């Protein structure tokens, strides 16, 4: 079984976020980038566990991004991935998924394991997009995965309980909490990461169907506003005009 793990290069969770060019671009200045935690902790670590148990023969990382993301890919190598591919381009989730799908189609993977979302754009959509492009079965937000032969058994949380799903390979899944525990790369892994093969591939057609027009920092916590219990009209008006929830 060959496993493909799409990974993202994202700002460290402790980063102070700011924007440039009249709030139309993320300001990368002074930001430390890391391997997206959900791709790392849940998808990649579980993929490595499957390889260590003899159920997978190879784990390949794939990243759609520019050359400055190479340290993040090498971090994935340090955790044990065998090799990696960087598709040289940037774009929205649709673009990223289309590039990953095209590569996967040409190179034949049995299992594609994405993290549940990225911590920068929080879209939760790349895994399902890849499944759509490849016309593979998709299990979203899986919390457990095991594979026997060509059958995967997964668990996912649903309203009021847990659902156990069986699916045939080839398969795309997005991985959520419970899939695996975080690992810290050991010295042997870090040394080996330097020489593992990273292939650079030119991006294909640029289908960017969305673009960010502007960013704004979220407002901090606001003060609590007390409304007299007999003044329902004011409460309704504030919920409508300020909170915008009704």
């Amino acid at each position: 079984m060959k496993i493909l793990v799409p990974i993202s290069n994202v700002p460290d969770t402790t980063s102070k976020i700011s924007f440039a060019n009249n709030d139309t671009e993320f300001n990368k200045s002074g930001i430390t980038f890391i391997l997206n935690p959900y791709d790392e902790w849940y998808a990649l670590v579980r993929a490595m566990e499957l390889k260590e148990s003899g159920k997978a023969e190879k784990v390949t990382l794939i990243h759609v991004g520019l050359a400055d993301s190479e340290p993040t890919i090498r971090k994935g190598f340090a955790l044990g991935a065998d090799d990696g591919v960087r598709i040289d381009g940037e774009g929205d989730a649709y673009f990223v998924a289309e590039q990953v799908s095209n590569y996967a189609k040409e190179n034949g993977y049995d299992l594609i394991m994405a993290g549940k979302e990225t911590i920068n754009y929080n879209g939760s959509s790349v895994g399902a997009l890849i499944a759509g492009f490849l016309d593979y079965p998709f299990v979203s937000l899986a919390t457990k995965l095991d594979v026997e032969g060509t059958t995967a058994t997964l668990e996912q949380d649903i309203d009021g309980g847990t659902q156990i799903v069986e699916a045939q390979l080839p398969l795309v899944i997005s991985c959520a909490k419970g899939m695996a525990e975080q690992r810290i790369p050991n010295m042997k892994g870090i040394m080996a990461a330097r020489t593992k093969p990273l292939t650079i591939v030119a991006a294909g057609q640029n289908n960017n169907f969305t673009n960010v027009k502007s960013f704004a920092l979220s407002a901090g916590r606001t003060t609590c506003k007390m409304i007299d219990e007999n003044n329902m009209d004011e409460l309704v008006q504030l919920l409508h005009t300020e909170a915008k929830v009704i």
Partner: protein
Amino acid sequence: MSILVYTEINKGKVKKASLEAVNYASKIAEITGASVTAIAINADASQIEEIGKAGAKKILSIKNEELTSLDNSLLTAAVEQAAKTENAKVIIFSFDLVGKAVAPRLSAKLKAGLVAGAVDYPVVNGASLEVKKNVFSGKATAIYSINTS
């Protein structure tokens, strides 16, 4: 032209998030002059009535037990067929387990722009919709422009 919205029945009731999605779709319909068509799968008469009260002008009631299995490829095919039949330009899902699985899949099938996790009503700007969503794990918001229909 119509705004298509996917609704879900859970434990005998229309999900609250689905009713919110219908209401959200009706607001977009007000802005764009379109009408709202809801998809209701294996819904009974009272559930269909509830979806109508939330703002749907037309309801496509699909009776197929296989669609209750949450198999997202079957649901995607059903919504794709409805979108083509209704000439839908905008399709709305709740940002939940089913929405996160079906909406992107549908986006790939229809070659349509996708914004996941909208937090405000969209703004029509010429031929594109502008949608606000949370980014950077809630530290910021972004206005996305969708360039397809």
